[in-house]
């Protein structure tokens, strides 16, 4: 599904990722953990094609295609989705208009028939329920004035509506109370399937109590410092990250 080899990324003149290699198969759930500043969020942003993130070396293939040859929206059309840690607010554009524009484009690109307005509305309302977001949020500006938790649920709502092949969840758990965390986890778990993969970027082991990962990786100093299974996360919880950073250095 996703093959990242020797990826180097520079932001604001600083090297953030320094030779990251990671392969993700279809249907797998990978957790990426690591201390602050290790480059966890950079990975998501560079895959999504955010301006200002420069790839200085390395390759990324997504479903067999060179991701860097594609525009941001083309990556999305292929099925790449990034759930943001800090989603941007877009006042004046209603959540509904925004979702409809995104869903219609996706259907069009996949050669699927467009949803008529009634079925779209129905789907949007149902999905709202699944992520425990009041339907009134559909009429508001995108993320406008949403609380932290509401923004995260709105990201989840978009993911469910867009049905991606690979979803990168960038610290979706941070700032969530336990109820909200369970909503997010239930949403992700309900979407797990043999042809959809997830990357959970997180600082804490807590999320992994609810979404069981197939692999856990530790990112330190811009590369994968250690990989393992779920038990690695528990070990990190216990020992912190410092020992790993020493190991890498």
């Amino acid at each position: 599904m996703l093959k990242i080899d020797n990826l180097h990324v520079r932001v604001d003149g600083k090297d953030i990722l320094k030779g990251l290699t990671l392969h993700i198969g279809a249907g797998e759930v990978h957790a990426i953990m690591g201390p602050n500043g290790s480059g966890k969020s950079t990975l998501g942003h560079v895959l999504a094609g955010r301006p200002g993130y420069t790839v200085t070396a390395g390759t990324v293939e997504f479903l067999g295609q060179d991701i860097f040859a594609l525009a941001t929206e083309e990556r999305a059309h292929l099925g790449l989705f990034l759930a943001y840690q800090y989603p941007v607010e877009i006042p004046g554009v209603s959540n509904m208009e925004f979702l409809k524009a995104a869903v219609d484009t996706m259907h069009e690109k996949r050669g699927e028939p467009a949803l008529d307005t009634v079925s779209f509305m129905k789907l949007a309302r149902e999905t709202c329920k699944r992520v425990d977001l009041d339907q009134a949020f559909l009429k508001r500006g995108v993320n406008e004035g949403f609380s932290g938790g509401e923004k995260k649920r709105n990201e989840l709502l978009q993911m469910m509506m867009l049905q991606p092949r690979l979803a990168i969840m960038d610290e979706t758990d941070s700032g969530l109370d336990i109820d909200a965390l369970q909503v997010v986890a239930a949403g992700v778990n309900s979407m797990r399937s043999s042809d959809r993969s997830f990357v959970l970027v997180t600082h804490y082991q807590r999320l992994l109590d609810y979404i069981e990962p197939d692999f856990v990786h530790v990112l330190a100093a811009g590369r994968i410092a250690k990989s393992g299974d779920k038990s690695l996360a528990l070990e990190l919880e216990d020992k912190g990250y410092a020992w790993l950073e020493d190991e890498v250095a």
Partner: protein
Amino acid sequence: MPDLMHHILDAASVAAPQWLSERQNAGRRAWAASAMPTRKTEAWKYTSLHRLDADFAVAQPSVASQAELGFEHPALGGSKLVFVDGYLRADLSCLALPEGVELIRFADADAAQARQISQQLGSVADPSGHLFASFSDAALQDGIFLNVAADTVVAEPIHLVWLTSSREVAFTVNQRLLVVLGANSRASLVEQFDSVGSGTAFTNGITELVLEAGAHLLHHRLHLEAGAAMHIGGVHARLGRDSHLESFHLALGSDLKRIDVVVNHAGPGAHSSLNGIYLLRGAEHVDYHTCIEHAVPHCTSDETFRGVIGDSATAVFNGRIHIHPDAQKTRAQLNNRNLLTSAHATINTKPELEIYADDVQCAHGATVAQLDPLMLHYMKTRGIGAEEAQTLLSFGFINEVVNTIRIDALRDFLRPLLARRFASDPTLTRHLA
């Protein structure tokens, strides 16, 4: 005297009712005493009047049918008066006024109404301070008087449409409206200006709003004129104690538009909110000058104007807040934001604060920027193409202001009309309706 419009003043006939002639004479004196504005005249620093330097004729009545005129307008459900080239077209109008509401031509005023008009007319729009208010007075022959009696509630919006047609010759229209809302009355008013065809027309439009104590007005002034249909004019309001004015403004660009909006808070507890949008393309020119006067204590005002300026168009925004001595406990704020969408577009904006009282809270802000690259990126990560994302965001930028309109039918009329301004290809606006 400004070297403009001599024909028009010469022709402004003695046909005006006798009781108006005094105002006409005063207007002529003020006009004669005024200097032609130049770039050094602060109020006209960024707007040239050279396009008015042509032979303009007095408009003649038009007999074109509605189909021939073919203009769009919202169905608001209440009374509607349609004027073509300044002349009331009864065949296109409908009146359904509740008790306590008068809507008449000055020419048809009875003695009591005439007395009321001559008392109020020109008491709000100061001809000595506004060149084109003096021109309006000088050329004054007729006008419309909307009078709402105290405690009257007018449920349906009153809709006034001023249309200029397309003619061989350049012509002028002198539009004048006086609105008096009696104490504790409520009404909503839509003034719509539009043009048909590509002829040259100049409308000098002055509206005066008098809100007596506790009155409540939803006011809308839409300038949809295009091309060589030019407009200079303004809305001048006086707010009595505890009255409430919400005023929405829209200007699509044309060769020349200059709109002054002056709100004088004259009674304690009065509140005004002004919301406006200007959208320009081609070589269009729009100049909004707003002035919020706080003359007495305990008033509040809130103002938001946004503009999107494309191609080689030029927009001007001047937003003044003036707190008089003793106008304590005033709260006033103004915000102006602009998007330039082309390398040749120009914005000149000047938010001004002039404050002579200390126990006040005032703030203003102005920005000029492009669409936010992070918002564009976010939309693209959801698969939305660059062009559609730009359309959605540009529309979203002004949609926040459109959303302040409380009349659903008007909002629904404007949204697609405005959305179309942002995209050449209709598929780009398919998600905006």
